[in-house]
């Protein structure tokens, strides 16, 4: 018996449940409800360009914020001792294992108009102070149901995806390389700019992909924290498969375009990052 044949059941499985569904997405995107070949679905996409724009804008902002927070955090963790390092990494990863709906829900009670942050600010007299100074009649800061809340939800949910790959790469840098640079007269800033940062780029790239893809395709975060005010690509796709706007043909076209854009991003990333494996699990 040749052992490679053991893979046959799964190869068949992949063909049915991975390849065929993706082919169906392509197929559905190219036909109309009557089953005729058409490009109508892609033409219809143009009316949703604002949704594409919003999705990509918010996802890019969230990715940028994750990078701005995540990079220094990963760098600082890598400079701690082995004990603190391990605890810090586990602590960074733990929240990720809580369902993202629950993590997002947690922010709902914080951000609501009568939520914890606003209650706290009111009790501290912040609103009285502002009202006295500016003559306004503020009783709360509107935070929930804004695009800002959606970005916050993305950052909160996906920040560990940015920290982990960057940390993994920085931590692997040979300390002798850094010592050599220091021996040759480089100062701290130069060591960072010429050694650590270039060597950490693969981690940065995989972090960017791992934050950007779920951010651009989310639909639950925008529903929970955006209150349906901010329509994202994920919401648009979801609407085509559930609810009144039922139109799987258009939904497939949107999914396909999103997938292609994401694939292009991934290809560009891999081209630069030489296929660095992003370690998702600690």
């Amino acid at each position: 018996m040749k052992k490679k044949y053991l893979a046959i059941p799964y190869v068949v499985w992949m063909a049915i449940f991975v390849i065929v569904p993706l082919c169906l997405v392509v197929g559905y995107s190219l036909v109309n409800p009557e089953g005729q070949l058409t490009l109508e679905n892609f033409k219809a996409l143009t009316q949703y360009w604002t949704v594409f724009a919003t999705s990509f804008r918010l996802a890019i902002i969230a990715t940028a914020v994750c990078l701005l927070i995540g990079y220094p955090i990963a760098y600082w963790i890598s400079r701690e001792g082995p004990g603190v390092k391990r605890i810090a990494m586990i602590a960074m990863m733990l929240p990720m294992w809580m369902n993202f709906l629950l993590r997002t829900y947690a922010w709902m009670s914080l951000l609501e108009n009568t939520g914890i942050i606003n209650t706290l600010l009111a009790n501290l007299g912040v609103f009285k102070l502002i009202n006295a100074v500016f003559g306004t009649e503020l009783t709360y800061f509107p935070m929930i149901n804004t695009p800002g809340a959606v970005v916050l939800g993305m950052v909160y949910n996906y920040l560990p995806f940015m920290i982990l790959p960057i940390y993994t790469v920085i931590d692997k840098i040979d300390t002798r390389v850094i010592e050599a640079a220091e021996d040759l007269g480089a100062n701290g800033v130069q060591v960072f700019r010429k050694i650590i940062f270039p060597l950490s780029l693969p981690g940065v790239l995989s972090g960017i992909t791992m934050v950007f893809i779920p951010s651009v395709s989310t639909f639950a975060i925008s529903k929970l924290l955006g209150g349906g005010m901010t329509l994202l690509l994920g919401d648009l796709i979801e609407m085509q498969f559930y609810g009144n706007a039922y139109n799987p043909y258009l939904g497939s076209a949107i999914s396909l375009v999103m997938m292609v854009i994401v694939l292009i991003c991934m290809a560009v990333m891999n081209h630069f990052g030489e296929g660095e494996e992003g370690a998702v699990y600690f």
Partner: protein
Amino acid sequence: MRKNGFFARLGLILTMIFLYAPIVVLIVFSFNSSKSRTVWTGFSLQWYVELFDDSRILSALATTLEVSVLAMVFSTVLGTMAAIGFYNMRKRPRTVCMAINNIPMTNADIITGVSLMLLFVFAIGAFNSTLGQLTGVTLKLGFATLLLAHITFDIPYVILSVLPKLNQCDPNIEEAALDLGATPWQAFLKVVLPEIQPGVLNGAIMAFTMSVDDFVISYFTAGSSTSTLAMEVYSMTRKRISPEINALSTLMFVVVLSLLAIVNIRSARQEKAAAARAAKLQGKG
């Protein structure tokens, strides 16, 4: 390397607060005695009591456990077989298989969910209009499609945790077993399986956690009559917000935490054992 200064430490602490404050608030208010999610009125376990009286939650919990356990069993068996198969393939077909294997992991969840939904709707439609009319059986989205979807996204994780263990195996040991008269099946059970067992177990636990945690793919493949815990949470946050969700979150957090602790303690122990074995071998040599 130089140690962190005050500013770096502060940054780390602030990030921790950012990550944990919402979770702490969530957990604290699961013990609140009033319905308010913002004002603390006293300690009570009433939301836990109500949670366990809620038949929808309980049936969703049952569905989640059933689908996760079944998906874990199927994906562990299929995935381990596939990993052994991939390992014994030549390089070219193996690369192709691994690339396809990675698709469900790299694709956005919503794409996997939607594409599987299309497959199921398409297949069910085809069945109902032909064979179904002959036999009088009408199929629809439900537990079966949910399970198929879960197996599909679980297997890649099993393969990714079994393959490295196979790579670590010494192929000579299995050949020795065969030379000494073991049947291939005996050689697998007594020699190969014990070697890769840690990878298989970690893969199984990973598959289970992934299934319990999944929302998006389940949402698209479970249909309207079947509901998992995550789906129930979603509909609760949309319709009837109550501290029951907080209680549910707390319990789910504790469960996932314990599963992870098990995985990590196991792998730490294995590392230690491997290090001890290596030290012993070196001592002999």
